[in-house]
């Protein structure tokens, strides 16, 4: 069943990317190549995709995902201006270091989403994740060195949304 879902998904992506309709006629070669490629993807990689795929059909989670998007993009844009300021400033005001934060998220896809959000937001880059829920973050401008303070400043604003979406 999961293989079928991933087969259909990858075939749809293939269709969007190649669009095999030329002058109103369907290019059979492209469709066959797409079927073969999606079959390979579905067979090889169905175990690598998240186990929690039921979350993508729950309307409440999709609602929170839609709410999260503007928050996320605001942070991404703020991050870009932050990097711009630090890169263009003649004295280069950076104070880098690697800090450790604790997350309360449990599921794999939740932690992945948190790590990716942290990477794309101001001044922080995820370096490693441990099994017991700690993340090592490279911070371009270290403001707090202990675990609680760093967690509060880096992760808290995303964790709330991500728990609503993924857990």
């Amino acid at each position, binding site marked *: 069943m999961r293989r079928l879902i991933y087969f259909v998904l990858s075939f749809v992506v293939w269709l969007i990317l190649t669009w095999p309709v030329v002058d109103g006629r369907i290019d059979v070669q492209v469709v066959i190549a797409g079927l073969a490629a999606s079959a390979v993807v579905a067979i090889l990689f169905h175990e690598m995709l998240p186990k929690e795929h039921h979350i993508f059909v729950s309307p409440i989670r999709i609602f929170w995902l839609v709410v999260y998007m503007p928050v996320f993009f605001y942070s991404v844009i703020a991050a870009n201006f932050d990097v*711009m300021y630090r890169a263009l400033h003649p004295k280069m005001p950076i104070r880098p270091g690697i800090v450790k934060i604790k997350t309360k998220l449990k599921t794999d896809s939740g932690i992945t989403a948190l790590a990716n959000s942290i990477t*794309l937001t101001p001044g922080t*880059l*995820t370096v490693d994740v441990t099994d017991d829920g700690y993340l090592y973050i490279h911070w371009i401008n270290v403001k707090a060195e202990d675990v609680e303070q760093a967690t509060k400043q880096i992760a808290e604003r995303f964790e709330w949304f991500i728990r609503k979406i993924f857990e």
Partner: protein
Amino acid sequence: MNDVIGYILISIGILFNLFGCIGLVRFPDVYNRLQAATKCVTLGTILLLVGVAVISANGLMGAKAIVCAVFILITSPTAAHAIAKGAYASGVPLWDKSVIDKYGEEKKDETAKTQRA
């Protein structure tokens, strides 16, 4: 009208890519450079693709550009983690003015423990 908005988006995207590259050249070590590379280049490239989508309005190219933008948004930070972890594992040092390195400290503790045991 669509053309104008699209070109503005593409220009902003190229500007952010430029700032990212300036950061890439100026920052002192791998980890700081990765910060510049992931953030600016991700948003810059996404803005380029959205600009293309706006210009081509409801054309096919727009759909392709949006799909590519989503892929970049997911894969770019993941690749950055892989590079950062790989760099650390192969012993690339932090910049000598870095204030703190929890990761290195705890790695050292672990190796000390295993050596004692």
